[in-house]
């Protein structure tokens, strides 16, 4: 069953992110995800890395397919101009990638590549129009491409509630749905009350929403996330629980389980961000009964 089918047939889908390995440690990665075969509806190959260089995402997708996993290719607008985006997507289509996750990407504020130029020549809604062109069998300038692409596309959405002008928050979603977006992946969820309010607002759109959940290991990691990813993302009570816990892993699993319990009734799935804990995913899935 591919991701599109799972989203229609299942009540709650589970996907996970992986970082494409930079060195030849694909075996380790495969070893880790073999353990959760059959429990994931898709594996997202991340293109955005806080610290700089990202390995070959297309090659990783190919290996995942050969090993009977359904890869979801992330593609974003920070490091690629329009030509690069099109060539990336055409290569993905050639390699049999069916799922695309389209992001604008964050502005780079940390890592070792701060002097590099960033593009953002298209944003995620325009990235959709690029995908649309390729699916119609031509590039953005109208020139025919050899093979029509066929993608199931999802995009990101900010699940923070009440932070911005409500009308603005919905505008982006409406725009993306109009352009053919198949599902939304939210920003990481920690606060279930806020997330529920967000879901109430987007329910009328009738489109699947997958909530992102980070496996936070320590209070230090939570502070890092709050500093570099998004201010105030990890709430103080979770940081405290982690700081005080004698067994960090157990505490982390409990936090995860609580979040999943809450999410099961309000959205259509969960997307795991293991950040180095790829080998521990089975434990988390077991605890949350996923």
């Amino acid at each position: 069953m591919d991701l599109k089918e799972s989203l229609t047939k299942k009540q709650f889908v589970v996907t996970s992110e992986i970082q494409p390995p930079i060195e030849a440690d694909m075996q380790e990665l495969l070893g880790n995800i073999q353990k959760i075969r059959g429990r994931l509806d898709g594996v997202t190959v991340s293109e955005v890395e806080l610290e700089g260089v990202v390995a070959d995402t297309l090659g990783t997708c190919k290996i995942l397919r050969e090993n009977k996993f359904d890869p979801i290719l992330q593609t974003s607008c920070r490091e690629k101009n329009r030509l690069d985006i099109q060539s990336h997507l055409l290569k993905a289509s050639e390699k049999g990638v069916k799922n695309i996750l389209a992001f604008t990407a964050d502005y780079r504020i940390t890592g070792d590549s701060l002097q590099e130029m960033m593009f953002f020549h298209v944003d995620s809604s325009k990235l959709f129009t690029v995908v649309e062109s390729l699916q119609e069998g031509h590039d953005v300038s109208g020139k025919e491409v050899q093979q029509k692409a066929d993608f199931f596309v999802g995009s990101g959405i900010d699940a923070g509630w009440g932070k911005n002008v409500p009308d603005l928050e919905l505008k982006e979603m409406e725009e993306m749905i109009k352009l053919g977006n198949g599902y939304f992946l939210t920003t990481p969820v920690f606060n279930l009350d806020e997330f529920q309010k967000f879901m109430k607002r987007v329910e009328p759109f009738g489109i699947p929403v997958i909530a992102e959940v980070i496996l936070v290991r320590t209070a230090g990691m939570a502070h890092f996330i709050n500093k570099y990813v998004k201010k105030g993302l990890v709430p103080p009570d979770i940081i405290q629980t982690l700081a005080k816990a004698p067994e960090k892993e157990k505490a982390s699993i409990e936090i995860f389980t609580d979040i999943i319990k809450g999410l099961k009734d309000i959205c259509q799935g969960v997307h795991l961000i293991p950040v180095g804990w790829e080998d521990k995913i089975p434990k988390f899935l077991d605890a949350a009964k996923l």
Partner: protein
Amino acid sequence: MIRSITRQKTPEEISGLLEPFTKIFIVGCGTCTTMARTGGQPEVVRMAKSLQEAGKEITGTMMIPVACDELTHEALEENKQAIAGADVLLIMTCAFGVQTIALHFMDKPVVPALDTLFIGKEKQPGTFDEICIQCGECVLGETGGICPVAGCHKGLVNGPCGGTDKGKCEVDAKKDCVWTLIYNKLEALGSLDVMRRYQDPKNYHVEPQPGKVLIPFEERSEEDGTQP
């Protein structure tokens, strides 16, 4: 008024650039760099003093009223003698001034003391904001007169992105999200429908670099606008 916003290079970089030279003539500018306090009279005096302390000989200094102006050539001629005694000119103007001065002397090296950052405006004393990046495809008519190309870190024309947070930017919590400003302005103007319009991808090459535009003489207006 638009200004060329500059920042002084580090003392290490300046001393590295001046290393081969002993006798130095310093040029400041009375316009943008005076206002930005990077190349006005006080900065020129300070620079001369610190170079003297480092063992350099200062053959003279001068302030040019508007270094990018054509009159710069005349001003330089007036200081010909002091300049002739120098091995190098240290220029404390923006890059426009540096190039104007470099064109005047075929036999004298120039060294810039400043980096030119952007064309901007001093919004509050000491705070300079980039206002226009001269993209060649003005969108201000659809954004309430507030520029997202210069004002958004990502330069998005279909904003805001997911990084907007209570009206502030993901890059810096002290910076306003320009797309929230645009939204509020359009709301005040009663034209939020414009906000919902999808903008096509921008042309990033309207004017191929280096820009050169020729306005034929016959197309320039000869009228002075006083006649009905």
